[in-house]
């Protein structure tokens, strides 16, 4: 009980409350601007969190990402341009409701069910994380190695591109993580004589480059999105309670699917929304209404993407394995603030964990009033020109990355990763896989080398413990899956030719 009271004291500190409020406004504004993703909003915030207390820093990341995910629904609903990839699954449905003259209802559904989904996701985090933490305490380096490797493999399988390219992106991330002296022997590795590379490639400038600079580069070559016509909205929450009672099954299913996908390493809110929308249509009694402005899919997918956001923190907090790109950034912040992820976090820093749960709850509750204000201001914010926002983002990328280490080499790192991220995305390589590789590289290598030293160079112990054998089987299955699918697809083409 005293831990719980201590957690409330941490959250109610003025700096934490101010951080929650400001990051909520920031997340709502950035998420609503087409082309600026929730990940980018979070990445740009990281240098600021460097100067905040640990709880305020985590509160900033949690609140900004949750708000940005909801806020991405606003341009999707009003302009048919999803503000964030997580809104893309149901943009057509929401826009169809707007065309039917029901923008208030569509935006209300997005807001109300996002908040409820967020609360359910937080409850899952509260229930699941301590139970899994107890189980994880018995894990050795073998299990950790397979778990981390499985996380990386999931990132390649769920990517909406060629699994081979996703695998290459992940390996490239691991190779980047090899740079520096942070290796089992402390030997300078791939530093080419540059002292700036001795400390390795900093994760935060790499993330800022891949997500923010690459986004600005992309904006340079695509036309400005169309402007939103001025309009006045009626009551946003009217009719939401009726919908909650009318579609309990869809809402529950959306929450559960969101939670499961969130826990899966590498799969984030966007995948949760796509899967839930497809499920809503599959199990609907009126699937023909989908795409015509029907609330069913919107409820299920809206609940799902925000539920996944909180549950994505389960593998991140327990094993340091990111649930998605936002938690990949959050892990960097956790390490920076001395809250090193792992099962012991729940025993040694229990009050911080409770504080984190409270922040998640608060974030989802204040989403409703702030979201209503945001929807009412949307016609003004969405009229902001790209040429007025992007230059400030470039400047923040430079100053923010410099601030993480007071070193101009970090600005060069941001520029380099901007180019890498842009080129990769243009050529069908998923940037998320690269980022997960960079974030998890040291962890995978440490567990791998420690396990090899423990086993005197033998790889048999990697498969001998029951849990590690199961994890190994799943990981190897995911590794050979693209090859199996490729061979399967080749088969019917050859059969008619032979006939």
């Amino acid at each position, binding site marked *: 009980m005293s831990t719980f009271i201590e957690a409330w004291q941490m959250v109610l500190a003025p700096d934490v409350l101010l951080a929650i409020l400001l990051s909520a406004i920031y997340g709502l504004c950035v998420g609503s601007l087409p082309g600026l993703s929730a990940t980018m909003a979070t990445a740009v915030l990281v240098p600021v969190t460097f100067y905040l207390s640990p709880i305020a820093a985590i509160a900033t990341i949690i609140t900004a990402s949750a708000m940005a995910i909801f806020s991405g629904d606003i341009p999707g609903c009003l302009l048919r341009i999803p503000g964030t990839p997580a809104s893309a699954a149901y943009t057509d449905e929401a826009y169809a409701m707007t065309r039917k003259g029901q923008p208030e209802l569509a935006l209300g559904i997005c807001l109300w069910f996002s908040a409820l989904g967020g609360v359910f996701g937080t409850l899952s985090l509260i229930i699941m994380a301590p139970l899994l933490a107890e189980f994880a305490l018995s894990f050795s380096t073998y299990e950790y190695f397979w778990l981390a490797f499985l996380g990386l493999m999931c990132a390649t399988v769920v990517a909406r591109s060629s699994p081979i390219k996703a695998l290459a992106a992940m390996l490239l991330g691991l190779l980047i993580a090899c740079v520096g002296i942070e290796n089992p022997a402390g030997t300078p590795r791939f530093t080419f004589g540059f002292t700036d590379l001795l400390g390795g490639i900093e994760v935060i400038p790499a993330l800022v480059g891949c997500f923010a600079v690459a986004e*600005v*580069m992309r904006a340079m*070559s695509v036309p400005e999105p169309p402007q939103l016509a001025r309009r006045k909205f009626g009551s946003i929450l009217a009719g939401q309670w009726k919908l909650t009672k009318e579609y309990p099954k869809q809402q529950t299913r959306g929450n559960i699917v969101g939670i499961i996908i969130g826990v899966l390493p590498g799969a984030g809110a966007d995948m949760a929304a796509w899967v839930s929308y497809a499920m809503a249509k599959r199990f609907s009694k009126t699937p023909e209404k989908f795409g015509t402005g029907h609330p069913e899919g919107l409820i299920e997918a809206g609940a799902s993407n925000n539920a996944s956001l909180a549950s994505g923190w389960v593998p991140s907090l327990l094993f340091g394995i990111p649930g998605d790109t936002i938690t990949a950034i959050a892990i960097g912040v956790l390490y920076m603030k001395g809250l090193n992820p792992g099962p012991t976090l729940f025993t040694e820093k229990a009050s911080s964990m409770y504080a984190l749960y409270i922040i998640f709850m608060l974030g989802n509750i204040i989403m409703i009033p702030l979201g209503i204000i945001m929807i009412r201001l949307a016609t003004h914010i969405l009229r902001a020109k790209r*040429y007025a926002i992007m230059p400030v983002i470039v400047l923040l990328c430079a100053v923010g990355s410099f601030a993480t280490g007071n070193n*101009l080499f970090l600005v060069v790192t941001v520029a380099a990763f901007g180019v890498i991220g842009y080129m990769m995305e243009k050529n069908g390589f998923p940037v998320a896989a690269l980022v997960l590789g960079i974030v998890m590289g040291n962890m995978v290598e440490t567990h791998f080398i420690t396990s090899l030293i423990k086993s005197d160079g033998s790889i048999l112990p990697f498969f001998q413990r029951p849990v590690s054998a199961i994890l190994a089987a799943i990981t190897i299955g995911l590794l050979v899956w693209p090859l199996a699918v490729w061979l399967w697809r080749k088969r019917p083409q050859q059969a008619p030719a032979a006939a």
Partner: protein
Amino acid sequence: MNIPNPIMGGAIAVLGAAAAYGGSLLPPVPGQQVGPNVFPVLIGLGLVACGIAIACGIGSSFEQPEEVVAAEDGSHAPAETAPPPVPYGALKTAVPPILLLFYALTVDSLGFIPTAAIMVAVTCFALGGTVRAAIGLAIFAPPAVHLIFAKLLRVPLPAGLLPMPW
């Protein structure tokens, strides 16, 4: 900039081979068979395999066409039916990284405010902003960012030619 799969795959395979070779030259942990050499060698070999697979076109059937906003109402269309791109779009994409390098090279001599003003104005122009918008943004954005980072967050931003009063 789209690079053909055989060239991209070849480059990845070469990078992987170089990483594996470079890794193999590293010494193991004293008294152990393994060390910092193992991981880069494995990654390098993995990259070689991926590079060859990409060059051979394996897995390309999984790729989905890039979706872009095409129509006036913001509707999405596949990249093949997209409208003509922004003039000099390919050149303009190089602007943000070049400006970041410019910042790294000149901020110590010019100072934060002039360097940031140039960056902001050029980015604004490149994105189609007017002269008035670019100048306005260059006047107001850098001091605001300086105030937040230098004064409130204590980041040592160089004063250079134009020191700020705070």
